[in-house]
Structure formats: C-alpha cells, structure tokens
C-alpha cells in the first residue's frame, strides 16, 4: 500500500464522519416534522400527499396498526413489481424489445427489491425495460429504504415514550422519508454523477463497430438517477450486470468516491438521528463508534489479505481503473451497508477479504447496515449486550431507562438469530440438492463460498453476489426469494413487537447504580458481543470456505 491508498481510505472515512452529525440532525428535524432549509420547497408536496391520500397526519398508530400498514404497503409493492415484470413485453418504454420475465425470476426480483435486498438473478441491461427499471424497480428502491427507516423510527419512539403505546403514523413517516431525505439526496447525487459522465437517457441500445471491426451493442438508459438511489438507499441493484464497475455507472475516480460515500451515508447519519431523537447525541455516537470499529477492523483484515498478494497479483476480477484499495473499500462498505452494489467481483477477492465480506453480512447487516434496518438490527445487539452486561452490575438490565425483560430478549434473539437459521439450513439443503449444485461453477471451498455467499447475501438482505453461481433457475430463485423474505420480516416483525412492548414501559431514572451505555466501555462490549455472537455461529462454516482457502493460499497449496 502506498500513500494514495491511505489517502483514499482516510478521505472516505473522514467525509463520512464529517457528514454524519450534519445529516443526522437534518434527518431528525425532517422526520419529526420540524422546519428545515428544505421545508419551503418540500413541505407543500408533503401536505399534498396527505390531501390526496386522505391521511390524517396527526393520527398515531400502535405497533400492530403500524406493522399492518407496513405489510400491506409492501404486499402491494411486491404485487406491482411482480406483474410489471411478468408483462413487461406489453408495457411501454421498452426500446430494446425485451421479453416478459419468467414467474420465478419475477418473484425473486419483486421480493428482492421489496425487501431492500436487490439481489439480481439477471443481467440488468439484457432483462429489464426502461419502464421496469424506472417505475417498478426504482419505485421499490425508494419505498423499501423508506420502509426500513419507518420501522426504525418506531423502535426509536418506543424508547422515547414513557408508557405510551402511540408510535407514529406509517404513512407520514414513509412520506417524510422520501420527500425530505431520499428524493433530495437522490436528485443531488444524480446531478453530481451525471456531471461525471454517468449517462441519463431513454434511448434504445446503440450498436457500434469496434476498432477490431466487430459489432458491439451498448445498452443505454436512465442510469444516473437509478444509480443515485441504488447507492443511497442501500439497494445495490445495478442498471448494468457489472454494476458499478461498468463505465456508464461509474466512470471517474470522483464518481467512484461519490458512490462509495453514498453506500454508508444515510445508515451512518441515522445513528445520530437516533441520538438527537433521544435527546442524547452521545448514545448515537456510541452506536456510530461501534459500527465504525467493526468496519475498520474488517477493512484492515481485507486490505492486509489483498496486499499480501503484491500490487498486481490480486487484480483478477477487479477493475483496473480502481485498483485493489478502492475495490476493497467498496467491498467492505457495500457488505457492511447491506447495499450489495459492487465495483469488483467478490469471487475474485482474496479468500479472507471475501470472507470478511461474508462476515459483514453474517453479523446481520448491523455495521451501519441498510437504511433504518441497520440501526434497528444494531439496537437488537445493544439489548443483548445490555442484558448480559447489565446483569453483571447486579440490576435488571436497562437501556435508555427502559427495563429489558424476558419478552424483549425473546424478540431481540429472534431478530438476531432468525437469518442464521435461513443461511445454515438453506446452504445445507442446497448442498444435497443436485439441481442447485449444478449452478455452482467451482467445487471445493470456493464452490462452498459461492453458495454460502448467496444465501448469506439473500438472508441479510444485502444483494451482492459472489459471482460464479448461476442463480437464475426456478429452484434458486424461489429458495433465495424465501430467504430474502425471512431475512427481512423475521427481523422487522420482532422489532415492531419489541417496540410495542418497550413503548409501554416506564422510563427509569438514572442513578450511580445504573449501567451506563454512553461510554467507551460499552462500545467495547457491544463490539465484543457482535463479533462473538455473530461470528461464533458461522465459524465452522467459514472455516470450510474462506478460511481454509486463505490458509491454503498462504501455504501455496492448490485446493
């Protein structure tokens, strides 16, 4: 590694830290209905939505009503995308005359975008019409991110409420998330990316004659706008098959930096939004620090592993324009953030760096994680930490003044562990199912990593692919679709139930006997619990994939 590598890492992390409190405060104001710089422009649109939809913005919901609204909204979103994809051949804005999708691909894709996963079993430019991209997929890019954010708000309000079951209004939350946060940032990012040469048009593919005299078809489309929300909304579903390593998606070092930053921007800022909402910014910084520490640890291990191989030897599968360090920064950020866009093929990372990408997801996407869901997932870990550590000071554990009791632990544990079961059993089932095994490109540890990565990515709602797995088969589309659904809702539903329970509790006053969560000792504990609980479950599996591969690589063995 040279000075430029360190500079790039430093810049990415520094700007992220710098923007976190600014955006965090802005999100807090926007989501709480307070006036901001943007209010003049955006507030009329917000009100307009209420008028048109007939939503009473003062009316608050309890957790069950809120959850019903989320589920209904997601179901409608799923059905819409599913049918658009199923009949896209007959729909407008299809200059490339792309055909209808198969039922299983439509199912997988609709689930994928609805759950903020953006797992893609298809090549974007060769499968999706402009209509499908702009209306169906981009719509869910906004809605799934806003759904995660709204669910997060419910849990935050639950901690804030002193014995009140009212947890806000889903329609208001989702509306504000989109109008004040996702849309403005997407517009800003679209313009910035377009300025770097990311294309934005509605044209049909262009056929050109190359220097070699061969014909090449170059896909066109509304790329800049799609990429902006893809990066910002922790979605990750690229316009092109090669995602952000495609020159139309990511043409320059600046566009790469902007897209890299956008991966973590909103999830990071939401830690501080949480802090401001609780009126305890320090608690927000605590979560931010814990996430940052795990992120940097993973980044360090990955970079170490990659640079072991010398500057050039690890270049296979990486974009020459970006090099090793930028590829690893991206692979770490995208798996930490539950985004899943890539600028290098993860299958081609060194085994350990690939393993760290998996581990980031296996933690449950809480290292910043998805928009909203990263924070609520992290709060589940916080409750677990508070419970174990809180007992050690001789009191019923409490967090932010709320006692953590049996029901809360039950919900937290379900939310943390449910995806683990999906991953473990999904992979085990696949390994004994010949129709799945025929999709693997490799045998041995790398083949194991391919299938393990796929289920991890789906269950963690990340969406990145390891490459090497031919996923567009009826069985894998269905299995992974179900994994994504469980990965999303087996966490979100317990979180909502938890919020309902926490909201009704009294806020206990602090004393010197209280276990404090706003110091570095707690950060240390939290990181310890995430690493131990998250990694212990998967150590045997990882040892048969990336770990054995890495050791063999060091020993100079070919497996």
């Amino acid at each position, binding site marked *: 590694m040279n000075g430029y590598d360190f500079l790039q890492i430093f810049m990415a992390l520094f700007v992220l830290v710098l923007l976190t409190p600014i955006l965090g405060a802005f999100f807090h104001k926007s989501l709480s209905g307070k006036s901001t710089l943007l209010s003049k422009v955006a507030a009329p649109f917000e009100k307009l939505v209420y008028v048109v939809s007939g939503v009473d913005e003062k009316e608050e919901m309890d957790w069950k009503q809120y959850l019903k609204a989320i589920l209904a909204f997601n179901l409608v979103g799923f059905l819409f995308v599913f049918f658009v994809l199923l009949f896209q051949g007959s729909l407008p804005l299809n200059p490339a005359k792309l055909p209808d999708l198969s039922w299983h691909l439509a199912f997988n894709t609709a689930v994928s975008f609805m759950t903020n996963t953006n797992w893609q079993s298809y090549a974007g430019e060769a499968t999706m019409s402009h209509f499908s991209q702009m209306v169906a997929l981009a719509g869910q890019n906004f809605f799934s991110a806003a759904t995660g954010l709204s669910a997060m708000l419910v849990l935050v309000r639950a901690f804030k409420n002193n014995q009140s079951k009212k947890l806000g209004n889903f329609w208001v939350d989702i509306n504000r998330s989109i109008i004040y946060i996702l849309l403005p940032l997407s517009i800003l990012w679209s313009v910035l990316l377009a300025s770097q040469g990311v294309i934005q048009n509605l044209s049909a593919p262009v056929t050109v004659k190359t220097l070699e005299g061969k014909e090449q078809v170059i896909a066109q489309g509304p790329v800049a706008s799609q990429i902006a929300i893809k990066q910002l909304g922790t979605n990750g579903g690229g316009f092109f098959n090669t995602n952000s390593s495609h020159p139309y998606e990511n043409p320059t070092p600046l566009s790469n930096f902007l897209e890299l930053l956008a991966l973590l921007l909103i999830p990071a800022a939401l830690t501080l939004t949480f802090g401001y909402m609780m009126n305890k910014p320090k608690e927000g910084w605590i979560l931010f620090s814990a996430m940052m520490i795990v992120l940097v640890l993973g980044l360090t291990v990955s970079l170490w592993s990659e640079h072991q191989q010398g500057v050039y030897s690890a270049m296979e599968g990486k974009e020459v324009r970006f090099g090793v360090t930028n590829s690893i920064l991206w692979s770490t950020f995208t798996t930490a953030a539950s985004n899943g866009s890539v600028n290098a093929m993860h299958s081609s990372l060194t085994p350990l760096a690939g393993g760290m990408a998996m581990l980031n997801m296996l933690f449950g996407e809480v290292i910043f994680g998805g928009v909203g869901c990263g924070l609520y997932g992290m709060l589940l870990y916080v409750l*677990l930490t508070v*419970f*174990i*550590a*809180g*007992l*050690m*000071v*001789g*009191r*019923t554990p409490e967090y932010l*003044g709320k006692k*953590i*009791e*049996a029901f809360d*632990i*039950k919900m937290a*544990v379900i939310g943390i*562990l449910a995806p*683990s*079961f999906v991953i*473990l*059993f999904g*992979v*085990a089932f696949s*390994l*004994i199912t010949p129709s799945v095994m025929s999709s693997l490109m490799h045998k*041995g*540890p790398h*083949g*194991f990593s391919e299938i393990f990565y796929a289920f991890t990515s789906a269950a963690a709602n990340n969406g990145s692919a390891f490459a090497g797995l031919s996923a567009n088969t009826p069985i894998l589309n269905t299995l992974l679709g179900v994994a994504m659904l469980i990965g999303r809702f087996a966490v979100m539903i317990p979180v909502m139930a938890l919020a309902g329970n926490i909201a009704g509790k*009294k*806020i*206990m*006053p602090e*004393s*010197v*006997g*209280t*276990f*404090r969560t706003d110091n570095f*000792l707690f950060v240390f*504990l939290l990181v*310890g619990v995430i690493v*131990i*609980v998250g990694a*212990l*479950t*998967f*150590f*045997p*599996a990882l*040892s*048969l994939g990336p*770990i*054995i591969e890495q*050791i*063999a690589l060091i020993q100079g*063995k070919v*497996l």
Partner: protein
Amino acid sequence: MKQKMLTKEMYIQAIVDSFAKLNPKTLIKNPVIFITAIGALITTVILLSHSFNWFECQIALWLWFTVLFANFSEAIAEGKGKAQAESLKKSRTQSVARLLKNGKESKINATELRKGDLVVCESGDVIPADGEIVEGLASVDESAITGESAPVVRESGGDRSAVTGGTRVLSDRIVIKISVDPGEGFLDRMISLVEGASRQKTPNEIALSLLLSALTLVFLAAVVTLKFFADFAGETVTIPVLVSLLICLIPTTIGGLLSAIGISGMDRLIQKNVIALSGRAVEAAGDIDILLLDKTGTITHGNRMASEFIPAPNIGEKEMYRLAYMASMSDDTPEGKSIIEFAKNKYSELQDTNLGESEFVPFTAQTRMSGINQGKVQVRKGALDAIEKHVASLGGHMPAETIRAAENIARSGGTPLVVCENERVFGVIYLKDVVKNGIRERFLELRKMGIKTIMITGDNPLTAASIAAEAGVDDFMAQATPEMKLKRIREEQEKGHLVAMTGDGTNDAPALAQADVGVAMNTGTQAAREAGNMIDLDSNPTKLIEIVETGKQILMTRGSLTTFSIANDVAKYFAIIPALFAGLYASGAQSGPLSALNVMNLQSPESAILSAVIFNALVIVALIPLALRGVAYKAVGAKALLQRNIFIYGLGGLITPFIGIKLIDVLINLI
C-alpha cells in the same frame, strides 16, 4: 436459623440426587442440560451399536459427567435448604390446642383449628397456629424459627401482638385469635420456601433461560448443518464428534449452574434470617433505588425516653407532671411508658392516681394525639401543631414560651410532646432520641450503590431535619401518616423508581404491600407480615441493606457466568475445528490447511476433542462454589463493578479454556 455447614451426608445425598435428576421430566426444565443429556444418550447408543471404541467411550462418559455435574450443582444447593427444612419440621409436631368457645375451654387437635378460633396458651404450651394475641402478655421462645434463644415478649395491642405456630410460651397466659387455616401457617410456608419446593423462576432468570435456549438452538443448527458442509468438502465427521462440538458450544456452564445460583441466593438470605416469600422480591431487591426507612429503630435506637418536663408559664411543676402522667396512663407505647416512669420517679404519689370514670382516647395518625376524657375534662398530649389546633378549636391558645421550648427541643433532635387539659396548655415533654452508631456510613455505602434513602418519621419537620442531617439520609418525610407513606411510594414508583421499605405495624401493611420490596419485621403484627414479601426474623431494619446486596449478587453471578460461558467458546473452536478438519486436503504426511488453526498445538485430533469436552465438564464443578457463594459485591458503583467483572469473567473466560484445554491435553497424553 443459623447457617448449616455442608456435611458429608449432604454431599452423599447430593450425589444420589444428581442421578435421580436424570429423569427426563426433571431435565427438560433446563433446555441446555436436556440437550446435553440427549447428546450423551446418542453418543452412548452409537458406542453400543458398533465394536468398542475407547475414544467414543470416553466422550460418552464425559458427556454424562457434564449432565451429572450440572445436576449435582442444583442438588447441593437444594441440600442446604433441605437440611434447614428438616430442623424446622421438628418444631411442627402435632400439638393439642386449648380451644376457647363461649368462655369454655376444650382440647382439640391443632390441625382442626380454623381462622378466627380463640385458643388459650399458658407457660409450657406450644402455640398451635399463627395468630394475634387478644388478651394478655407472655414471654415466648421463638428459637425454633429465629434460632435466637433469648425469649421475646409478646402482648396484646400495639405492634408486638403476632405469635407464630410452633413457638413456645415460657410464662404467663395469653388468649390468641387464630389467623390462618391449617397448612397455611408461617412455619408451613417457611418450610416449603426453604426446601425450594415452591421455587419459581424469577423474571431475569426466565429472560436469561430464553437467551441460553436460543443460543443452544442456533449452535444446534450450526452443528447439524456442519455435517452437510463437511460432506460437501469430502470429510467424514462422526456423530460423537459433532455431539462433542455441540456440547462444547452450547452454554453448559451457565446452563448447568443457573438454578443453583437462584437457590443458593435464597439460601444466603435465609442464613441472614430473612425469609423471602418470593424469588421475584429477592431479584427486585437488587434493583431497589429508593429505601424508605422508619426513623425509629432503624436510624435511631428508637426508645424515645422522656428526659425533661418543661411547664408552660403559670403552671406549677407538679401540676405539669400530674397531667403528663394522666395523659399517658393508657398509653402502652414505649414513649408513654417512659413518661409514666419519669413522672413516678419524681412524684411517687402519682402512682395512686385514680382516673375513675374515664375514656381512653387512642393515638391515631390523623389526630396525632392521645389522652383520656374524664367527663368534660379532656387531657391530651401530642405533637405541637396537633395540640395547637386542638386548643384553638376549644378557644385556647399556645403560649409563645411553650412554642419556643418545643422548637428548641426539636432543633436539638428531640421530640417535643405538648400536654394540655381542655384549652389550657400545661407544658412540653422532652423525648430524646439517639442516632445509631455506624448508620451514617451505611447510608454512604447505599449512596454509592445508587440507592437513595428516605427517613420516615412521625416527628415534626424540625426534629426530622435535625435527625436526618445527623444520620446523613438523602431525604425525610416528617409527620408521616400511613397514607402519606403509601402516597410517597406510589409517587416514586410512578417516576420509575423501585422502592423498598420495612415495617411492623398494622398501619404499615398497605405501604408494605405497595412497595416493590416490603420487609416485615417478625415482631410485627400479623397484618404486616402478610403484606410484606419478606420477613426478617431478627426484626432488624438495617437488614434491608444486606437484602439488596444479596439481590444484586444473584444477578451479577448470573451475568458473570453467562459471559464466562460464551467467552469460553472461542477457545473450544480452536481446539475442535482443526481437529475435525485436519485431514481435509492433507497431502501425504503433511496435514491439511485447517490444522494451522491448532494454535494450542494439541497432540492429536482425538485428544483435542476429548480435552475440550473434559474441560467443559470440569469447569462446571470448578464453578459450583462460586455459584453457591455468589460473585462478590462491593458498593463501588456500576462502572467499576462492570469493569471488574468483565475483566475477570470476560477476559478470564476467553483465556482460561486455552490454558485448561492445553493442560488436559498434556495430561491425557501422559497417561
């Protein structure tokens, strides 16, 4: 009830019980150990199904040991309680009761007594059931329950009227109104509590069990799927080895010791002569952040003694003494008695005072006065403001000198009692009260634990403030009535605090019931003893502090051992995973890549797995003393406690198994 040491018989009994607890119905109550037992069973079946394999035999044996060790920890914790219950049962011998019906005595069996019956007890009689003395006074030997051999005085009226079945009357004759039906008596409840028969899991214990069960499930998933992963990799792993991995990963340490921690916690309280009527209360005690303490008896010695009579202007000294004497004649509180004594010492002729036709006016918390009515003459004594109101209502007024005298008394920490006859004020009685030695330090300690103390007293604000300052409490409630106490508890609970209090009087009962932890004094009334969720047999109100410590200790022990248990897993992985897959992709004599993870350099795959399993079993035994004793508690604040426990049990839990497994591996290979 004094501490029972662990005897040889108790160990033998516990070993027998550990086998009895292999009953699946008992095992299933503890999911972690239940899974361990199933693992042991599977390994045994596999062992028996093929030709003898010494390695699998050892695994099977150690897995059974793991289960037995966990059972043993519970059995030994229960054993202490059982021994105590045995000695209690001896005092529950069949006794004959002397039933009093319509003034006639008849002998019936004590078990036939019902609530509301009246019985007579004379010296030598065993009190047949719990009740309240309605007539008479007696000295009672309560050693059967309290272990204290000095007899106590029980008398009708006041707060020392409750008697307990199974105790013995030493002198005099009393009539007792029975307050419980057979089998529900204090002694019966105590026996079942001590035995642990009625033990229910406490809220934190339930939450922790849930977490442990979930971890067990996820490790089960990890191990079951590992079989498929290994098959894909081309490595055969045997079931006994997978079972070993599973048992090493699931939290057997805390799972095995969990119930022992709870049982021994209750047991430690019993050794301190506190009977907790529910485990929930013991746990709540650890959470207490506000302590309501009665001034009298807790903070001060309580015997407020008359030390001076200060007559009002124009009142003769003898006149004042006579009135004070009269006002106290029907007052059987220690204060009343001390006034009588004081007056008699000066003017012995007062002894012959004849009240004639007169009516006793008892002290009530509302009027805060007591005295007698003799025809139209109303003699009263009471707090300054109460008397002031009283004389004002009759058209009199309080002389300024008397007010000044009363205020002086209050300021110096004493209690002024003003005496009046009708509208005429006669003077002030100076009652002196002394703060206990060492109580100030106790409160300082409580503050460090994050507990606020509130002193409750019937005294006026001035008196209360002076004593509060001397004792170093955080807050005080002066002129407190039972209603105010109850209200204050509700208010504090509304704000999210958990409140503990002690009490003995009948009027304390509502507050005792409302408090999260209500400790009733054994000397108290039956009503108080029923309302509280703990009973202190020593009737020592400062005991609350020890109760809080015990509550905290139980939680700390659970948390620390959970941390230890989970941290242990890291080392176990480094022992078992390389052992499992050492042969994977091995070429010739060189072992496979994963043997690089064998950082402990364990001899062979078999000895590595066996060492991990043996360590896992032995660590339970090694920690039994800690589970029974509890993690040490020091009043140093949450942060320091946490740092200490994380260091010992977190870091220790991470490192210890590396050393332990390595040592066992070396030993195995020596043999």
